[in-house]
C-alpha cells in the first residue's frame, strides 16, 4: 500500500512534463498558425505605407533617397494642374461609377430573379467581363467607342450619316466613356452580389406582402431592398476600392487623354514615380490616394463596429 503512490507519481511525472509543453502548445496553436500571415500582412500594409510616407517627405528623385526634406512635395502636388484634374476625375468617376454599377447590377439581379429561363446563361454573360483583363477589354472598348473605328462608323455605314457618338475624343465627355467601360466590367459582379442577397430573402415575406395587396415594384421598394440593405454596403465598399485603384482601364482606353482630361491619380503616381524620376512627389500622390480611401474606410469601419455592437447588444 505504501509503495503504490510512489510508483504512481514516478510513472506519471515523466510524461507530465512533455504533456504540459504539448498542451501549452495546443492552446496557443491558433495564434501560432495565424502569426506568419499576420506578420506578412502587417508588413505589407504598415511598413509599405510607412516607407511611402517617408519617401514622400524625402528628396527622392530617380531612386529612393532617405534624407527627409519636409512637406514641400505635397505643396507642389497640389499646385500641379494635372494632379487637380486627376483628383477631380477620381471623385467624378467614382461617384458615377458606383451609382451606375449599383443601379445596373441591381436591375439585372431583379430581372434575373424573375424566374427567367436559362438563368445560368444570363448570369455568365453578365459576369464574364470581370474575368477578362482590362488590358484587353479596355483596348476593345477603345475600338468600339472611337468614332473612326467603332459604333459611329458602323452606324454611318448603315446609312445614318449624321449619327454622332464621339465621347471618347471629346475632352469633356471622355471621362464618361471610362465610366461606361468601368460599369460594364463591374456591374455583373454587383449583380451576383445582389442576386445572392435576393435569394436569401425569406419567400414568406414576399408572400405576406402579396397577400397584403402590395404591387411588385412596391414589394421591392418597401420589403426586399430594405432587407438586403447590408449588401448595398458591401457593394459600395467593393466598388469604391475598385474605383480608387482604377489604372489599367484608363491606360488601355484613353491613355489619360484626350490631352490629360482623363488622368486619374493612380496613373499620376505611376508616371511620376517611374517615368519622370519624381519619386517623392509620386509617393506624396500615393499617400493622397490612401487619404481618399480612408474617406471611405473610416466611416465604413465606424458603421460596421456600431452595427456589430448593436447586434451583440441584441444578443
Amino acid at each position, binding site marked *: 500500500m505504501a509503495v503504490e503512490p510512489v510508483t504512481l507519481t514516478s510513472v506519471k511525472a515523466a510524461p507530465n512534463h512533455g504533456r504540459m509543453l504539448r498542451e501549452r502548445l495546443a492552446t496557443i496553436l491558433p495564434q501560432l498558425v495565424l502569426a506568419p500571415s499576420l506578420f506578412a500582412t502587417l508588413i505589407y500594409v504598415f511598413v509599405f505605407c510607412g516607407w511611402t510616407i517617408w519617401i514622400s517627405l524625402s528628396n527622392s528623385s*530617380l*531612386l*529612393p533617397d532617405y534624407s527627409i526634406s519636409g512637406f514641400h512635395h505635397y505643396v*507642389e502636388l497640389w*499646385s*500641379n*494642374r*494635372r494632379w487637380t484634374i486627376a483628383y477631380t476625375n477620381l471623385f467624378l468617376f467614382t461617384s458615377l461609377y458606383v451609382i451606375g454599377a449599383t443601379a445596373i447590377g441591381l436591375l439585372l439581379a431583379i430581372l434575373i430573379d424573375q424566374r427567367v429561363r436559362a438563368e445560368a446563361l444570363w448570369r455568365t454573360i453578365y459576369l464574364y467581363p470581370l474575368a477578362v483583363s482590362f488590358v484587353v477589354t479596355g483596348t476593345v472598348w*477603345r475600338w468600339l*467607342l*472611337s*468614332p*473612326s*473605328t467603332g459604333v459611329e462608323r458602323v452606324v454611318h455605314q448603315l446609312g445614318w450619316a449624321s449619327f454622332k457618338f*464621339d465621347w*471618347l*475624343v*471629346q*475632352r469633356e465627355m*471622355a471621362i464618361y466613356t471610362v465610366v461606361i467601360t468601368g460599369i460594364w466590367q463591374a456591374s455583373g459582379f454587383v449583380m451576383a452580389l445582389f442576386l445572392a442577397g435576393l435569394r436569401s430573402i425569406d419567400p414568406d415575406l414576399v408572400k405576406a406582402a402579396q397577400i397584403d395587396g402590395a404591387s411588385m415594384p412596391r414589394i421591392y421598394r418597401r420589403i426586399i431592398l430594405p432587407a438586403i440593405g447590408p449588401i448595398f454596403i458591401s457593394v459600395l465598399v467593393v466598388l469604391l476600392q475598385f474605383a480608387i485603384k482604377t489604372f489599367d482601364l484608363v*491606360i488601355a*482606353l*484613353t*491613355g489619360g*487623354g*484626350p*490631352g*490629360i*482630361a482623363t488622368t486619374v491619380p493612380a496613373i499620376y503616381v*505611376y*508616371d511620376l*514615380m*517611374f*517615368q*519622370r*524620376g*519624381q519619386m517623392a512627389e509620386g509617393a506624396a500622390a500615393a499617400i493622397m490616394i490612401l487619404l481618399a480611401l480612408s474617406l471611405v474606410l473610416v466611416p465604413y469601419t465606424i458603421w460596421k463596429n456600431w452595427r456589430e455592437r448593436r447586434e451583440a447588444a441584441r444578443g
Partner: protein
Amino acid sequence: MYLARYATAAVAASTILGLLSVTAVYAVPKTNLLSQWDNGSDAAAIAKLGEMFTAAGGKWESTSIAGHTANTLAKLRADVVSGNLPPAVQLKGPEIAEWDATGMTLSLDEIARKENWDGVVAPELLSVMKPKGSWVAVPMNIHRINWMWASKIVLDKVGIKEMPKTWAEFNADAEKVKAAGIIPIAHGSADWTDATTFEIVVYGMDIDLFRKAFIEGNTDAMRSPQMVAAFEQYRKMVKWMDPGIAGRAWDAAANMMLTGQAAFFFMGDWSIGTFNAGGFKEGVDYLCGQAPADNGKPGFILNSDSVVFFKQKDADYLAGSKLLAHLIMTKEFQTIFNQAKGSIPARLDVDLSKGFNPCQQKSQQDLGESIKAGTLVRSFAHNMTILQKYRGAAMEVITEFVNTPNLAANDAANRMAEAVEAQQ
C-alpha cells in the same frame, strides 16, 4: 598497385582542375536585354540581335516590356532597388546621363577605343552616349523625326506637284486638300504624337526657339511670341485633322494617309516599317520629304535608341555586356536592325545603297547636310533633350492644346512655361 591507383587519381584530379580553370578563363558571355521592343517587327529585330549573340557563343535572354515607357523604367528601378542591376537596358537621351550619375553604369571606353567608336558614330550622339566623357551607352540607330509623309494618290488628285517646303506653302496645300473634301492631316493623338508634330512645327518655324525652349528648357523662350506663333500654326493644323484623332493609334493614322483618306502625315521614320509591312511603295503610294522649314536649310531632328550597360558582379555577364556592345556596333547588326525599323545606322560608315528604302537613303544624306548646315538637333518629344519631368510637363500642355479647341495659343505658351517652372 598503390602507385598505379595514386597515378590514376592524380590524373583525374588534374583533368578536373584543368577543366575548371578553362571555364574560369573563358566565361560564357551572358546577357539579358531589357527593352520596350516587344511586338511584331521590333521584336523580330531584337530577336535577330539575340541570334547574333548566340552565334557568337553567348547565352541570350531578353525582357521586353510594352506600353508606357514607364513600365520599362519601373522595371529598371525595381531591379536596382532589389539590388539586382540588369546587365543591359534600353535607355535614351538624358536618362543615360541620369543613370550614369548614379555610378552604376559600366564604362565601355576600352572597347570603344579599340573599335574607334568616336570616329564612326554621328557626332551629335557623342555627348549623349558619353555624358561625362566616358562611353556608357551604345547607339543602335538614328531616327529622323522631321519627316512629312504624303499620299501620292491625294496629291495627284488635288494637283500638288511638289512637297511643300515652307509652312506657308504647306498651309496653302492643306487648304487645297480640304477644298477637295479630303482630310489634310492624318493624326492619332497621344502625348508623344502631339509633341512630335509640334516639335516639327517649332523646328520648321524657328530653329533657335527650338534650341532655347526644347534643348535648354528655357521657359522665357516657351512663353515668347515666337512660341505663340508656333502654337497658332499648330492650331491651324489641328483644325485640318479629323475629329477622330483622340485614342487613334499612330499606325491607324498612317493607314489613313496610305489609303488616300488623308493627305499628309507627320511622323518619324519608324513609319517606314509599317509602310513596308503593308506593301506600300515610296513614289507609288506615298512620298517622303523633310517637314516644312521656313529657313530653307536642310534640317534633321534626331532620335536615337541606345543600350546602357550596368555594372555586374558575375564575370559571365561582364563578358556578355562587352560582346553585346560589340555586336550592336557591328555594321551587320546596324544594317539588319535599321532595315527593319526604318531608321538609319548610328554609324555613318554603313552603305545604305542595298536593302534600304529610298527615304532611308535620303535620311542619311540629309543627316550629313544638316550637320554641315549646323541645323542638326536632338528630339525633345522623344526624350533626347531635357529631363523627363520637364518634358512630361511640357508635353501635357501640348496634348491638352491639341484636344482643347478653345485653348488660345498665347495661354498655351504661358501654361507650358509655368508647368515646366513648377517642376524646377
